[in-house]
């Protein structure tokens, strides 16, 4: 059985946010409902300051805190789907407990005040389709049992590693390399579009996979490993880690 993993090389990532928009359009998320966000941090001061960034998808943890707390078992880890953590929108009651439990902040509840007004939900209302909103450009794929498509009102949404794409890959696919024409359509949107090729996707259960090779060669790390969540997302490169948050008007002037 495959275990899907993602590798993000921070030495190559340019912080452009194409992963964010590719995900937003592929999965029809609302502005601010960024399943794949990029966080920016400043440290130090002119003329020796640094700016860092961290792309942050769902870590699809092997031991996911969110699954443990879900009162309705709406959120579940699907070993038959490469270990992706899904939300079954048929079961989710929108209690948000999972959002609090998640150490990475990668679960979303879009049924709030919009980040941006005018509100897209009013411009493209959901109507008879029971969707939270219904833009004309929505993707044709939908599977509420896995949290794919546009959600109904009142549920939590999250990254699925683009399961609607990866699940259509030929059996036995190990490396989802977008430069390989035979598999490019099955590569998760954020990986497929990454211009500097800072992202890789493949099977963590196969020692010969490209992701395992990179993790081995470049000393891949998992974020917040002390929580025991065991992410299936690995980071490479200098400074791979979550920088401490410092309010901009306090502390060291940053």
């Amino acid at each position, binding site marked *: 059985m495959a275990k899907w993993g993602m590798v993000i090389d921070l030495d190559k990532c340019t912080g452009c946010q194409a992963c964010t928009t590719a995900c937003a359009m592929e999965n029809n998320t609302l502005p601010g409902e960024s399943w794949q966000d990029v966080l920016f941090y*400043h440290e130090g001061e002119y*003329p020796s*300051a640094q700016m860092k960034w961290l792309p942050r998808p769902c870590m699809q943890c092997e031991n996911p805190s969110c699954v443990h707390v879900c009162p309705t078992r709406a959120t579940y880890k699907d070993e038959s789907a490469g270990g992706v953590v899904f939300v079954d929108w048929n079961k989710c009651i929108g209690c948000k407990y999972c959002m609090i439990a998640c150490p990475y902040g990668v679960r979303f509840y879009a*049924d709030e005040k919009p980040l941006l007004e005018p509100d897209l939900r009013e411009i493209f209302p959901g109507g008879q389709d029971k969707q939270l909103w219904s833009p004309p*450009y*929505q993707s044709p794929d939908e599977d509420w*049992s896995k949290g794919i498509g546009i959600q109904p009102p009142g549920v939590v949404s999250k990254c699925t590693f683009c399961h609607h794409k990866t699940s259509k890959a030929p059996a036995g696919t190990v490396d989802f390399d977008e430069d390989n024409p035979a598999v490019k359509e099955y590569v998760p949107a954020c990986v497929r579009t990454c211009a500097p090729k800072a992202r890789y996707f493949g099977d963590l259960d196969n020692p010969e996979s490209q992701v395992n090779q990179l993790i081995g060669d470049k000393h891949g790390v998992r974020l917040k490993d002390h929580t025991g969540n065991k992410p299936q997302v690995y980071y490479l490169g200098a400074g791979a880690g979550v920088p401490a948050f410092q309010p901009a008007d306090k502390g060291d002037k940053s």
Partner: protein
Amino acid sequence: MKLFQAMMSRRRFLQTSTAAGAVGATAAGVTGLSGLTQSTEARAARPRGETKVTKNICHQCPARCGIDVYTTNGRVHAMYGDTGNPIANGKLCPKGHLGSYFLYDPDRFKGPMKRTNPRKGRNEDPGFVPISWEEAFDTVAARLNNLRERGESHRFAHFYGRGWGASDAGLYGDFGKLYGTPNSAIGHASMCAEGSKKAKHATDGNNSYNAHDLRKTNYLLIMGASFLEAFRPYNNMMQMWGEMRSKSPKTRVTCVDVRMNPTMAASDRALYIKPATDGAFALAVAHVILTESLWDRDFVGDFKDLNQRFRTGERIMPGSFDEKWVHGLTEWWNEELKDRTPEWAEGITGIPARHIRQTAIEFGSTRPAVAIFERGPTGHTNGTYNGMAIHSLNALVGSMFTEGGLFYQMGTPYGGLPANADDYLDDYARNGPWKSQPRIDLARTAEWPMTSTMMQEAGPNHLKGTPYKMDTAMFYSTNPIWTAPDPKAWEEALKDVFVIDTSPFPGETAMYADIVMPESTYLERLQDSPTYPFEGWPMSALRVPAIDPIYDTKHFGDMLIEIGKRINGPTGEFYRIIDNVENVLRHRAKGFENNPGDNGVRDFESWKEKGVWYRKPYHWRFIRGDFYEWEGQRYSKRMTAAEVKQKLLRTPSGKFEFKSGYLEQYADYINKELGVPVERVGLVQWVEPRHTGGNRDLYFVTPKTPMHAEGRGANIPHAAAIHQPVAGGRGTVYLELHPDTARSRGIRNGDKVKITSDLGSIEAECRFVASHRPDTIILPFEFGHWAQGRWAKDRGPGHSGELTANVSDPISGLASYYTGKVTLTKA
């Protein structure tokens, strides 16, 4: 079960806490238990319809990335980079994916309209009423025919921003010639990046941006080019970044900029420079390359006496240095460079001398090394000279036309049009009074003798009535009433001009329009697009409509042709033969028959299928001291000096000129405008910038972020939501400033502040960014629209352009967008 009870009470708490959430939570089941079992109405996977993929080119920046557009059941729902397109290589930048918003933008114009309210202004409702395309074309043509009958056809002007190719902006030349106006068309280059083109024109004779071979570059010096934000082609630059930073040897990068940005953050060395002083930095780098004997002998030449050296402050004997492919090195050293030490440059740029020296030694000792620059150094009154100094570094280290270096772009071998405009000129076109009229922007006149276009002058010139008043103006993909420096002058100017706008969107120009002829969005268009300078070899991509236009819109090229058909005399005949855009493109594609593309494209149909024609390799290369031309297998034909002059180094001397023969032709003009002594104008040299608002104490910089989207960024919800991540700007942009700069003015993080220039004031919210220069404040250019759609209108801080004085580099004509000084107070 106890746990579950607790959860349910928490859910009820949430129900009361958010009204919107309550609807969903209630729907999940009042029994509280139904959620645990699969309800009968549960939705599982749905079958999807047939998906069609068409080829197109993104329209959100000049890069021209090929895209695959995914359409299912008649709806466009995704776009990804086209794997077969050499710029995109299957990739996209953050804007590219958002193209569906252009197509389904709820604020799009639905069809042609005319104005009913004669008054124009920000707060005037145009009172648009729908008209037919026939009425729109007839109205415009009647106006143009009438002007022609009165001998005033020069008072009609075309303005354009992003021209794509032969099927749109490529039609302007014939139109001007046949109809009779010098103003077909006024391009936007002088408000874009004309400075870097002019710097290259003055030194190597090519009035163009460079093509690059970055895959094989080992050292990159980036000066004010926003390489990882806005340098074109942005998407490809990021691909190259990934390659350069993971190849062996890893490309080393030094970035010089006036502010912290992603390129600075990602480079090996970030040097903060005082705005407009890049030329001084580059001259000091050149000084060190020469004194450390690091220059490229094959390209530059060498001393006759090999024991001789360049020594700081000491002249060299004329004739002692054998120049190879460069001109004027001895005079450059003796009259300028010998005293341009890193210590001298430190005093001007603020960059410590040791960093300048270290950068120079790395740059001079790593081959191939490339220095690139864009609007940062050139958006000032001394911009051309700044650019020349930077570009001279490429010559000193021998990177011109080398592997891993930089070169220029070859054109596409298009077929001819079905008719030649020269055969359809009537007497008026040949000898009418328009022939003696200058352009409305006064480009290529004594006023601006060295510039090819000066769009920013057209509005103010109309206001003054110098050289005349415009009667009618047609705008395509440009919006100077908002984007020009001092845009309020345009708001006055366009009040008494008959304005035709062709944007699909309700921009500021449209609010002043008398006729709106909405163009189809790019996903609905058939349109060609030869590449901007990229890797040198020729390439032309094609937009193929993913779906038929969803509203009553047309291709801009078809609008121009339809108006042409209605012009009296032989002009009408010409356009009846040209007929339509598809016909134009079918004729252009005939050029591929004898030049089949590397991907098999040889006619219109295969072009549509593949979306791009290209043919590698680039034809010229500099190898160990000589230039060679491609002969089918390799670069084997050695070129004569005359051939190099004709094809590659197109300067008066046929060499790379450190003493520019081109500038010397305009010595008196440059002396008058910049005060450079007549005998020195040709030298690559340091010229003091003249900042507008000179007595004010802060530099004001207004960069474009990656989400700029050709002016649409503010009305694309997902773009606006992530517009300025470096300072947390989500849904707005903040003024970025150093905390010390703020605190000394009593400003706290998040305060509303007032920025004041000589032109007036705007307000913005501020955010502390301690990594910026304390003397430079940053407000990304994007928001502050008074039109453009429901998301853009009135969003965010004031418009930075309203603080930008209309001052330009007299040589290139480039508007000095980044040169204004301002004061800052708490609002």
